């Protein structure tokens, strides 16, 4: 093992009340790609934050080529060649691509004036390497999420780092973008650089990684060459038990229509008509920007509609705000939980009850604290949210657990129609299964569920019917028995002739 560049040994991190990491090891080999796997909350992010100097470790040792090192901030870790590409975008929307890439490290001339020519030339070189056509002077806010992710990657490359940590880099990328990313990763590897690759997409792990380190509940499970594993084995290591069926579809006899949408038009969506029955899951597929989220948010009263009718339980409803939507029994669980799904600064309890305080409060708006606490305890139990208690602030939870809080908040309103927007984005395999089980349970109870998802297997595996969108319109609606990946894709890219 002479080619170890970084060795983390016996790393333990204790937060007030929580042991986030317990004696964890991680080896990063020169010119190799190490996958770091684990469920949400397993401690991957914490470990990486220790490696990049964001957190201080409670105990343990980090060695760089055999010498002990320690960092107390990201600048120091960058100094010795460690760069990280975060799962959440850390770009400044109103600056250009070039400015973002070189933020804080702008090339300057002798008079300390920024050398714009050099900045944009260097930025352009990196962008070309990543296969991005946009000019480096383009404002980041004009880019798609996928392209923004590529800018993040460009930023890490510009640091000329020896070790690059990628936290869910493909989460928002299209297939094509993913391909060019993999090409770059292979080139980097060839140059002798090392990569730590964090992803929930096991296929990607098997495609590009050399070794796998698995964490579970803050514990080190083991390090394996990727050739010794297969998908089932990896999942078993991650969740500590065998997974039965990945998509546990249940069949229900759908009842009468709970939600009917008739010829809905708005500046964002056109001529939308469909219905969702009680006990039915309707999946909405489509490419990014096809109007799926816009449709959901129009139904939820965030965006205005210009014409059309919405009926719930056969009665026309007039929804102009989320408040009215909830009142009428329709709730929406956002794809972007940090921006608008949960209130990070409030506790689990306060989040879960937020939409339904009216029901929990009596005279003069006094909140019944006992009922509220019971509701939170209930949510924590039924969703198995991993937490130190209902008073814990949501910002201290892992991504998957935050998603469960977001879901609990919406379910607390006892909706008739539940709209889930990318319910499993950034959620690990084990938690995904839990979310599917929860969906099935509510399906059984007769709830109507709309699920927007970019993951084809999920759409095919969970939906009873699939609605495909293209450029703000419905391109087709297919029963799950008739659907396959190719059919959905054709509809999604607008090849209408094959539709039904």
């Amino acid at each position, binding site marked *: 093992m002479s080619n170890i560049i970084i060795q983390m040994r016996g790393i333990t991190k204790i937060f007030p009340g929580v042991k986030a990491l317990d004696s964890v090891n991680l080896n990063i080999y020169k010119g190799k790609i190490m996958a770091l796997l684990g469920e949400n909350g397993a401690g991957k992010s914490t470990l990486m934050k220790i490696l990049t100097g964001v957190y201080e470790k409670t105990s343990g040792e980090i060695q760089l080529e055999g010498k002990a090192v320690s960092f107390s901030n990201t600048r120091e870790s960058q100094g010795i060649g460690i760069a990280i590409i975060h799962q959440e975008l850390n770009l400044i929307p109103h600056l250009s691509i070039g400015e973002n890439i070189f933020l804080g490290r702008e090339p300057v001339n002798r008079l300390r004036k920024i050398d714009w020519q050099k900045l944009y030339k260097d930025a352009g070189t990196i962008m070309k390497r990543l296969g991005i056509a946009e000019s480096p002077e383009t404002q980041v806010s004009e880019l798609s999420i996928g392209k923004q992710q590529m800018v993040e990657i460009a930023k890490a490359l510009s640091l000329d780092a020896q070790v690059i940590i990628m936290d869910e880099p493909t989460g928002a990328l299209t297939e094509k973008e993913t391909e060019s990313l993999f090409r770059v990763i292979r080139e980097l590897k060839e140059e002798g650089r090392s990569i730590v690759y964090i992803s929930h997409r096991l296929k990607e792990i098997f495609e590009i990684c050399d070794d796998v380190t698995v964490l579970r509940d803050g514990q080190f499970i083991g390090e394996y060459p990727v050739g010794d594993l297969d998908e089932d084995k990896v999942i078993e290591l991650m969740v500590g038990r065998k997974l039965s069926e990945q998509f546990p579809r249940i069949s229900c006899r759908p009842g009468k229509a709970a939600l009917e949408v008739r010829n809905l038009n708005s500046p964002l969506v056109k001529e939308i008509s469909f219905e969702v029955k009680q006990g039915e899951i309707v999946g909405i597929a489509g490419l990014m920007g096809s109007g799926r989220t816009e449709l959901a948010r129009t139904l939820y009263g965030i965006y205005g509609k210009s014409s059309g009718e919405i009926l719930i339980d056969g009665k026309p409803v007039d929804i102009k705000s989320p408040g009215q939507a909830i009142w009428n029994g329709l709730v929406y669980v956002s794809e972007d939980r940090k921006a608008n799904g949960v*209130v990070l600064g409030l506790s689990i309890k*306060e989040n879960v009850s937020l939409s339904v305080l*009216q029901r929990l409060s009596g005279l003069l708006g006094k*909140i019944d604290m006992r009922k509220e606490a019971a509701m939170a305890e209930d949510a924590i139990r039924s969703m198995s949210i991993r937490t130190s208690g209902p008073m814990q602030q949501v910002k201290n939870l892992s991504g998957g657990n935050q998603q469960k809080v977001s879901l609990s908040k919406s379910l607390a309103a006892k909706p008739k129609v539940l709209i889930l927007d990318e319910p499993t984005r950034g959620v690990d395999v084990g938690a995904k299964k839990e979310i599917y089980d929860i969906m099935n349970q509510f399906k059984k109870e007769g709830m109507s569920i709309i699920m927007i998802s970019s993951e084809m297997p999920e759409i095919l595996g969970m939906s009873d019917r699939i609605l495909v969108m293209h450029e703000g319109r419905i391109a087709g609606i297919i029963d799950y028995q008739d659907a396959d990946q190719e059919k959905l894709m054709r509809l999604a890219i607008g090849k209408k002739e094959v539709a039904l």
Partner: protein
Amino acid sequence: MMMTIKGKLIRNKSLFVLILFSLVIAVLNPRFLTVNNILNVLRQTSINSIIAAGMTFVILTGGIDLSVGSILAVTGAVAASMIAGGANLFASVMTALAIGAVIGAFNGIVISKGKIQPFIATLATMTLLRGYAMVFTDGKPVSTGSHEVAGVFSSIGAGYFLGVPIPIYVMAAVFALAYYILRHTRTGRYVYSLGCNEEATVYSGINADRVKIFVYTVSGFLSALAGIIITARLSSAQPQAGSGYELDAIAAVVLGGTSLSGGVGSIFGTIIGALIIGVLNNALNLMDVSSYYQLLLKGLVILVAVLLDRKQKSSK
């Protein structure tokens, strides 16, 4: 509920600063810790702390209200001239309070419906209302006169009940009510939620505009209440009354550990913050510190207290 470990530390810290500070002053000047002087400090603090209570609501939503001092001047002048004109006590007080609330609601509507930044919106109303106060009073103090009603009115500010000045009761009632609203009602919860994340609050089905209008209405109402007390204490309303009070109120809120970016803080902290400022003013006078040094010391105390708070927050 919101009381995490960090919250408790912040609470205890400003209280700790206040107690330590008071002990030092008590040693330096034995007259400080007399019952009379404590009542005196509390009475003087009542004006700033009542305004700061309203400011706490506003700041918790991530806003700011610069117009409090001008609202105080306008409502004080209205109350004084009504009393002087022979109106009855109840009508004068209620009119002044209603005007304060309406101006506050107007601030809230401009900010929420007009989508104007709170700083800008209330800067405009601050200037506008100060101008109106000058126009209304013609630049001169408005005396409440010396008839019987004026005498009763003045007792709101200068009177005693069971040996304790009446403004102290008013202050206590305001804080008890503010605590109840912020901690035990859904409106209070919405205030915190809005300050933490406005978008998520809207997505949770809450009418954020209504919450904003509410907090500015509270701030306007309490500014009017402070205006009535100050006018009653002096038996006269000054057109320049309350200028600079917005900064004292903001200082009290911030000293109390409430974050200017919203979502974090408590009403308990605010009263401690207001008391720190009040005790400081009192001590500087008691010890006959030269006026040149007073501003210097006040600035230093605010700076040190806020830095302490900052340090505590980052080293959680």
